[in-house]
């Protein structure tokens, strides 16, 4: 039995080690290890609650906005304050920019290098001038002998299945996507001051007052992103997928899914969010269930913390105690979250499946069209696995980018009607509890 350790696990945010045991060409057992502890739970204690949304953004520099929003929402709940309509929409827009940025970055810069052979692109025979130019650039880069971030990849490995022409196209779009993910972030900064670490979503709403000039700027910029998602990102997924169809059923996981929902509706009903709240279990797929924060526990049996009982995060305890790497006992800084004692998949596939089963019209149409196109009409279960996850991200990216245009128009309509408030003032009570339930691009967040 072979044991493989991958440390560092790259092209992710954070420090991760993976150990796998392989028998007969299949993974028999696996251990994931978070190798860094910072202790935000401990740091936040005793602070001014209004600072928390700034501090918690620093949990993740790729999805800071989601962490900040979840924190501000827990304060909104504790202070019993509701953001005005434009405040709600600005938060959605800033969150949306981050989703679009994150999905582009994830597909092209983090995931694609496992599917795209950069060196094989040199063998392509492009006819288009722009692709020839990229290939020449790539030739010069490889000839320099300094491969930078592409050094020591598995180039030439038979698991790379794309023909040279598609590899070249993907390299060209890798470079283009670098620009597009930056543009999506610049757009968050228009409202949020800067990205990463936006500045304008405190408890109570937003402190950015949008002007008509802002909104014109915004609409033109979001249109550019929408066009790019429609004409480059989605077609690229469709171009790559046929070569990796044997991955379709691979890595289904436990096939339980959870989404708290994200992008607030005017009604503040979590089931009416653009991506609504809900849970799905493998045992009665495709039945949709309510998702309730009371049913979440975190277990530390195998984590470097004191404590033996699984606890709800509302009464959670974080007492670090490093005891060395021991896969039979304790081996990670990550806690194990469970929902009704089950491991759940979170992220774009979970959200899109919940949206689909909730009958969210846009998600339903996008997924139905996709299923029909691949000859599996009415069978969402074929999306479970690696290819489904990639497809779900691309479809969600399109859904969010399109919705973002609409939110811009909504703000303009509000301004026209004289509805310009973005922030609701509040008194901070001496004692209060609140909860925020939201989604980062990579999955569910709770803050309380």
């Amino acid at each position, binding site marked *: 039995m072979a044991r493989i350790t991958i440390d560092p696990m790259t*092209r992710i945010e954070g420090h991760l080690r993976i150990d796998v045991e392989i028998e007969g060409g299949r993974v028999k057992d696996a251990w994931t290890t978070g190798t860094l502890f910072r202790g935000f739970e401990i740091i936040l204690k005793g602070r001014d609650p209004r600072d928390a949304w700034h*501090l918690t953004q620093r949990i993740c520099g790729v999805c800071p906005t989601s962490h900040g929003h979840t924190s501000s929402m827990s304060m909104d709940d504790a202070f019993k304050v509701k953001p005005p309509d434009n405040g709600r929409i600005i938060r959605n827009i800033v969150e949306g920019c981050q989703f679009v940025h994150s999905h582009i970055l994830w597909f092209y810069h983090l995931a694609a290098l496992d599917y795209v052979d950069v060196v094989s692109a040199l063998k392509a025979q492009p006819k288009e001038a722009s692709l020839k130019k990229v290939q*020449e650039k790539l030739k010069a880069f490889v000839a320099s002998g300094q491969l930078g971030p592409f050094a020591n990849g598995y180039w030439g490995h038979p698991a790379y299945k794309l023909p040279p022409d598609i590899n070249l196209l993907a390299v060209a779009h890798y470079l283009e996507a670098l620009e597009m993910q930056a543009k999506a972030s610049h757009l968050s900064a228009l409202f949020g001051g800067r990205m990463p670490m936006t500045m304008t979503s405190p408890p109570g709403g937003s402190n950015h007052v949008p002007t008509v000039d802002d909104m014109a700027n915004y609409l033109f910029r979001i249109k550019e992103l929408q066009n790019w998602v429609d004409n480059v990102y989605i077609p690229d997924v469709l171009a790559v997928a046929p070569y990796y169809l044997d991955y379709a059923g691979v890595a289904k996981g436990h096939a339980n899914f959870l989404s708290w929902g994200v992008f607030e509706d005017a009604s503040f009903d979590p089931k009416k969010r653009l991506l609504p709240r809900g849970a799905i279990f493998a045992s009665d797929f495709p039945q949709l269930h309510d998702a309730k924060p009371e049913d979440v526990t975190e277990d530390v049996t195998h984590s470097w913390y004191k404590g033996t009982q699984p606890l709800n995060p509302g009464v959670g305890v974080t007492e670090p105690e490093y005891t060395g790497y021991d896969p039979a006992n304790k081996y990670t800084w990550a806690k194990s979250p469970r929902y009704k004692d089950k491991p759940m998949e979170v992220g774009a596939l979970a959200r899109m499946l919940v949206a689909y089963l909730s009958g969210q019209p846009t998600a339903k149409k996008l997924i139905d069209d996709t299923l029909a196109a691949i000859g599996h009409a009415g069978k969402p279960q074929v999306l479970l696995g690696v290819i489904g996850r990639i497809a779900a991200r691309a479809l969600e990216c399109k859904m969010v980018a399109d919705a973002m245009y609409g939110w811009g128009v909504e703000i303009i309509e509000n301004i026209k009607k004289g509805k310009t408030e973005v922030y609701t003032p509040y008194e901070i009570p001496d004692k209060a509890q609140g909860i925020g339930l939201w989604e980062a691009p990579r999955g569910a967040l709770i803050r309380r």
Partner: protein
Amino acid sequence: MGEKHLVSEQFLDALEFRGLSRRDFLKFCGATSALLGLSELYTPQVASAIEKASKRPPVVWLNFASDSGCTESLIKATYPNAADLVLDILSIDYNETIMAAAGKQAEEVLAKSLKDGRYILIIEGGVPTKKGHGMIAGKEMIDILKDFSGPAAAIIAVGSCATFGGVPSANPNPSQIVGVSEALKKTGVNKAVINLDLCPVNVEYLVGVVVNYLLLGSLPELDSFGRPKMFYGRIIHDNCERRAHFDAGRFVEQFGSKEETMGYCLYKMGCKGPMTSSECPKVRYNDKINWCIGAGAPCIGCAEQGWPDKFARFYERLPGVKIPGFGGIETTADKIGAVAAAATAAGIAIHAVASASSGRTKDKEKEEGK
């Protein structure tokens, strides 16, 4: 044009071959000169410095107790953009967030860099000093830092975590995280560190420092916190677009109010601009589209040592700042009152000097115009 004798036609052809147009290249050099506070006359020198570095300078970028927000900043660069940085300007040999290799393959890349030496070592994230609280490939982060600091041509700490510990080092600092300089002291290494404070780092500062290094072959002049004076020499309050409102006693008293739409001063909303040194008002963020105060958010002081604890309660006003128009000190607080007053006094002095010198620059421009 002067660039002809400094940058060869051949080089410009080569750039064009690599997909970077002459116009874009010179635009980049111009933007960089402006950032470095150099006159446009220096543009050819910047271009020449990049040409001479025909081997792209190798960069080893290590992430310790960070959230990768500074790597995110890096790939939000515009002139040069991320593709230019990766393909044409730097050789980013190791950065866990973007590199193709993982595990053993990544370790091999790192070992080769260590052997070759003379890389620019960029550290993102603070350094945990509690055993087991920060490990990569089975090694303590502080030991990795020690090993890699020796052969480095220069060490740059990017972002508030790497400089002085940042958010994860906030009280009670559960993993006993320290900044890079402090960590090096603990391991007995005596080496200068360039501190690029801010959370996250402003990528234009990072590019500025690297080009400065290529241009002059030396590191920029640093202040007592190890920060380049060219980026941290002036107080935000003194260059803020809302400063005139402060001077006239016009303040935002509530977010989203009419006063905010008028762009009044955010001091009463907790702005830490009067105690924070950084070129944010000039350099801004994200292709200069905006910055914190521009968007309506009070500065939280992330460019300063001791952040965030030093400025905790971000939405409470700084104590001891003299408010013009109302006479005298508005509030005095026991904690940092004296420090704040001194800093503000210094700020006002710097403001006066800056005004005078910008006046001189104008005169000089007039002369040159003739």
